[in-house]
């Protein structure tokens, strides 16, 4: 469908209408909005809650909002949360059990109906991240039915990236700044002397039906060209670039690198990188009982490979050193994810760089590992 339907254009009132139409369809619309000094993802009830006129200043371990003169709504890159906050929530009940008066145990799987979400402003990197989590959580024989329910019920409005941040590297990971598929509607924001508008592409039948309810017009050539140019320009403005090598091989060949000691000395093992990562999916089981002992529940909550308890087995944690924990995370993300799930676990959104309190930069680490490998092979050759 992406190439079959003519493109359309909506104005800001069309964006307002998009929110109200989706809300009218019974969906909870989640989109970017300014809160607590950041552009967060939260329920939005109207277009006026979108971050018009806000951009972000990003660096390793640094995030600040900044005003923009152009009034753009989507000129910001990845914020403190990702869509996994909604699709793979931090804590969900899996089942509960009751002990009846006669002593019989009755177990019930949690059958809370999935929420009906519409995600507004999904960046290309995040669209890929959702696809990665789809493979992890619903691929294979142990599919997570609750995740699938939330995922299949979600309406995705992607917004192409025209303003990459200083910590972005989606081009290196092949995930942006343009979107190709996996959306219901895809927008590209264009602001020039002809006005503030959004090029709209349709990606699904439902997307087409929603668009039909909006005040829109056929795309004119000028808007098409401007949108294409702005996305193309974004390619050249990535703040970061991964080393141009096979990262899976790089990870495999640098397991004993000295660099892991260097990064371990800086790492706080606080777990922030995994919590903000849009693809990190690990959870732990939480057993809940009440005082009577007659009611028990199992919950699942986010866990992290940086937590000592994550690998706690009889005798202690398997990955006791911070070196082993950072290496596990990094090599999984960039390397062994391919072996396990057939793709990279990193989409280049840069969140782990920004939200690391001490600013550890996965791109810088990859370059350092590549340099160390090159130096070692040079030495071996001489």
């Amino acid at each position: 469908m992406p190439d079959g339907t003519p493109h359309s254009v909506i104005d800001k009132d069309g964006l307002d209408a998009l929110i109200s139409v989706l809300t009218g369809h019974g969906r909870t619309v989640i989109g970017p909005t300014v809160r607590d000094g950041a552009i967060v993802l939260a329920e939005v009830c109207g277009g006026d809650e979108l971050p018009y006129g806000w951009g972000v200043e990003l660096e390793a371990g640094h995030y600040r909002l900044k005003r923009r003169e152009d009034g753009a709504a989507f000129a910001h890159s990845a914020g403190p949360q990702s869509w996994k906050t909604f699709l793979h929530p931090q804590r969900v009940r899996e089942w509960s059990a009751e002990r009846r008066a006669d002593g019989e145990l009755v177990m019930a799987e949690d059958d809370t109906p999935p929420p009906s979400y519409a995600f507004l402003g999904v960046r290309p990197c995040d669209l890929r991240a959702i696809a990665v989590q789809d493979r992890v959580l619903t691929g294979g024989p142990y599919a997570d039915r609750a995740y699938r329910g939330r995922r299949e019920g979600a309406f995705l409005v992607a917004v192409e990236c025209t303003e990459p941040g200083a910590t972005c590297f989606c081009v290196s990971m092949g995930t942006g700044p343009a979107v190709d598929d996996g959306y219901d509607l895809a927008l590209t924001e264009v602001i020039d002397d002809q006005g503030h508008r959004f090029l709209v592409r349709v990606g699904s039948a439902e997307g087409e039906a929603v668009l039909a309810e909006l005040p829109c017009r056929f795309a004119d050539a000028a808007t098409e060209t401007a949108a294409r140019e702005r996305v193309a320009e974004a390619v050249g403005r990535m703040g970061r670039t991964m080393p141009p090598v096979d990262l899976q091989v790089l990870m495999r060949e640098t397991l004993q690198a000295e660099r892991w000691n260097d990064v371990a000395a800086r790492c706080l093992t606080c777990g922030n990188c995994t919590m903000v990562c849009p693809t990190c999916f690990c959870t732990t089981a939480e057993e809940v009982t009440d005082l009577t002992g007659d009611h028990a529940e199992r919950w699942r909550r986010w866990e992290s490979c940086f937590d000592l308890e994550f690998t706690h087995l009889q005798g202690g944690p398997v990955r006791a050193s911070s070196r082993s924990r950072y290496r596990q995370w990094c090599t999984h993300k960039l390397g062994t994810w391919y072996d396990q799930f057939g793709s990279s676990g990193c989409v280049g959104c840069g969140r782990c760089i920004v939200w690391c309190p001490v600013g550890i930069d996965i791109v810088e680490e990859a370059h350092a590992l590549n340099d160390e490998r090159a130096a070692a092979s040079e030495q071996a050759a001489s």
Partner: protein
Amino acid sequence: MTADTDRPAGRPKLAVWKFASCDGCQLTLLDCEDELLGIADKLQISYFLEASSAPGPGPYDLSLVEGSVTTQQDIERIRHIREVSRRLVTIGACATAGGVQALRNYADVAEFRAAVYARPDYIQTLETSTPISAHVPVDFELRGCPIDRGQLIEVITAYLVGRAPDVPEHSVCFECKRRGTVCVIVAHGTPCLGPVTHAGCGALCPAYGRGCYGCFGPSNSTNFPAFIPLLRRDGMNTLDVVRVLRTYNTAAPEFEAASRKELRG
């Protein structure tokens, strides 16, 4: 509350003990309003002076111990309590790390005594404030100043069904991120002890835009050499750093080592 005689016999006996402390942690038990009747149904609250002036005799199945050891009598008393308790759980920063009163560990106690009391000669006290675990074996330590009500109920509930309590030892950052709080360090440049502090409070302070001040003590995986430069970057000088580490958990080994290192320069 119904009379204790109306409740099932043979319930495990609970005792609550106080050492040097403010009583806030043991009062957390009384704050368990919705659960208090359930707790009293399952445990015979045998010794709890804040709740009843009629203490019952030991031995006790579960002893909750609040406060730190600051006198010779305390040392004798905690040994006795250990002897009459099947399971001993310390509650709060005082019992677990020595409390804010462990600031005396770095000072001249005689000088403090003379400054505070009209008749210092009436006061007999040790030179140090130490955690319960420095004197007797402890089965479980619950962190916090004060402890978290939900975690206290979890410890009691887990005890009743014979499982390990679910009390994660990782950083407060886990709780901030799970709660969806914007990081005050990264987004605001606010000094925050979250990355080195034990979870349990639900990341309360950052949720209100304040930095964590470490009232649950160190997490199980700290890296102070990498962390302290962040506090300095965000405006703290040596004295500020030492002060933020020297509060309720000042004598927790990781906090103490870090503050001493700062003072050595």
